[in-house]
């Protein structure tokens, strides 16, 4: 009973981590750097949804969609304004993304303040599953994550733009010679990634509370998940996210809750020791 409960909690937290990890991986493959600013973009997503629900009285579902679109646009803008003009140096891009993350955080604190906020009480119907009751919030998070990830993989593997994204990720030069508009593909990738991050933010806000560091705190488990999945493999990132979410929930049963993020780090460091290439290493990366 207890175990099933922890498993479901882990699944919902792991789903959110997986969304962020997929976004990080996607941008890592196309733009060749780990974008730290996604952590605080996730926070922005959550706060935007809050403003829409409280300020405009929007229900939860339109708010999550609109918030995803807005974070998507912020993501694309950040790519065009900050990252694209910098060229290809991984280090420069990485450090700039840290700078951008700090600017985002300052903006969040300026607009919404430092207090812990929460969404207006949304009641989701809880689901009876045999002897246990799954709280409605968990159901919403798990189902939304599943739908979003499924939609994303459909896009990646069943559409023309998805094929172009995968081709560009494998070899941008070769993709260009086959007539793929790499610049356009890159923008689509940033849009998708930032939208995934925004959705993750709203879900995180719905399952816990909103505070300016929520995204930063989720960023490191998401990095751990991306590394676990082989830093560059989107399927691996999804599996890595779920694994870390579930492991963190089970660890809380034995260790003080404060050490929960430590579990993600421990898994990551073990992985680096035993199998540095990750669970599903991407084939083209030496």
């Amino acid at each position, binding site marked *: 009973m207890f175990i099933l409960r922890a498993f479901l909690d882990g699944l919902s937290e792991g789903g959110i981590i997986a969304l962020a990890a997929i976004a990080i991986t996607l941008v890592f493959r196309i733009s060749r750097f780990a974008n730290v600013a996604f952590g605080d973009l996730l926070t922005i997503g959550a706060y935007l949804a809050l403003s829409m629900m409280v300020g405009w009285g929007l229900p939860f579902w339109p708010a999550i969609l609109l918030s995803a679109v807005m974070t998507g646009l912020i993501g694309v803008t950040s790519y065009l304004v900050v990252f694209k*003009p910098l060229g290809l140096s991984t280090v420069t891009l990485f450090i700039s993304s*840290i*700078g951008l993350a700090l600017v985002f955080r300052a903006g969040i604190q300026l607009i919404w303040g430092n207090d812990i906020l929460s969404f207006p009480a949304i009641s989701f119907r809880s689901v009876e599953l045999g002897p246990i009751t799954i709280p409605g919030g968990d159901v919403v998070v798990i189902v939304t994550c599943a739908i979003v990830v499924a939609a994303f993989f459909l896009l990646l593997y069943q559409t023309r733009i998805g094929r172009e994204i995968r081709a560009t990720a494998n070899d941008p030069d070769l993709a260009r010679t086959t007539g793929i508009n790499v610049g356009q593909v890159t923008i689509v990738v940033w849009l998708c990634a930032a939208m995934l991050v925004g959705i993750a933010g709203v879900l995180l806000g719905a399952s816990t509370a909103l505070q300016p560091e929520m995204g930063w705190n989720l960023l*490191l488990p998401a990095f751990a998940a991306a590394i676990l999945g082989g830093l560059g493999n989107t399927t691996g990132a999804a599996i890595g996210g779920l694994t870390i979410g579930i492991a963190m929930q089970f660890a809380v049963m034995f260790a003080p809750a404060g050490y929960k993020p430590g579990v993600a780090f421990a898994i990551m460091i073990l992985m680096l020791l035993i199998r540095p290439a990750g669970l599903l290493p991407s084939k083209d990366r030496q």
Partner: protein
Amino acid sequence: MTSYFISLFSISLIYVLFGLGLNLHWGYAGLLNFGHVAFFAIGAYTSALLSLNGAPIAVGLFAGACMAAFAAYLVGFLTTRLKEDYLAIVMLTLAEIVRLVAVNSSWTGGPSGLPNIPAPFVDALGRTSRGMFLLMLVIAVVIALLLLSRLTRSEFGLALRAIRDDEVCATAVGKNIRSFKTKALVIGAILAGVAGAFYGMYVSYIVPDQFVPLVTFYAWVGIILGGRSHLGAALGTLVFMALLESTRFLSDMGVPITDAQVANGRLLIVGLVLIVLLRVRPQGLFPYKPTLPKQVRAEVQRTMSERIAASNHPYHEKIDA
């Protein structure tokens, strides 16, 4: 006013020591360290815990440096065989782990930290001890600069830069890359550990919130502002920290601004300076100058430009000897 300047420069010089360690990692060895604050925190806590339990201050300082070195050795063992992105992420995580332990353990004082850390000279000099502390920091920074420039001009330093610029080449001439990188990590961490110990003594109380990831990025801004040479990094960090720290005193001077606004403004400044500098002047204000003799440099420049002209290399603008 004097005490204000003493305080401003003491804190800034502590960050200069900290930044010099990071510059050895990044500027000379090309190691992407985004969790330098971990070594700072380890130095601060080790030294504070020892001196609070009756050990002499010097012993605490030494132990702080040793613990930071040990942590760096472990990180080196874990990451030097992997690609550079991994060190970045492992260091970022290490910094968070150190902070998690500090927040959640009882022996570190938990979230309320460690108060009443003893500082040197206080017993003998009383109120004027702050001036002596500043003098000690100046001497420490000068010694660090001298030792570092000796170190990086030695064969060790040349090997480090060779590895930074071309790992395959350095391996081909028989350099043990893992060992060189680990040594660089350890030496830089010692500087951060010493800086941390000084910091604890200076502010006299430490809490986990003082060791947030932002502290690492202060040093990054300093290096990017100043350039990757020792002197450049030191000057960059000094200027940037002095400017940043002076915001602390704004409210004392009658400017109507709350502490939260100051903290928020600092975030914004660090972020914007990073983004703008990398765009406008990525090599820094005082960039690293190669130390080859003039004739050799001229010779290299001549053959390089000849070859580039001959090969029609598309990146010829970016190459300078």
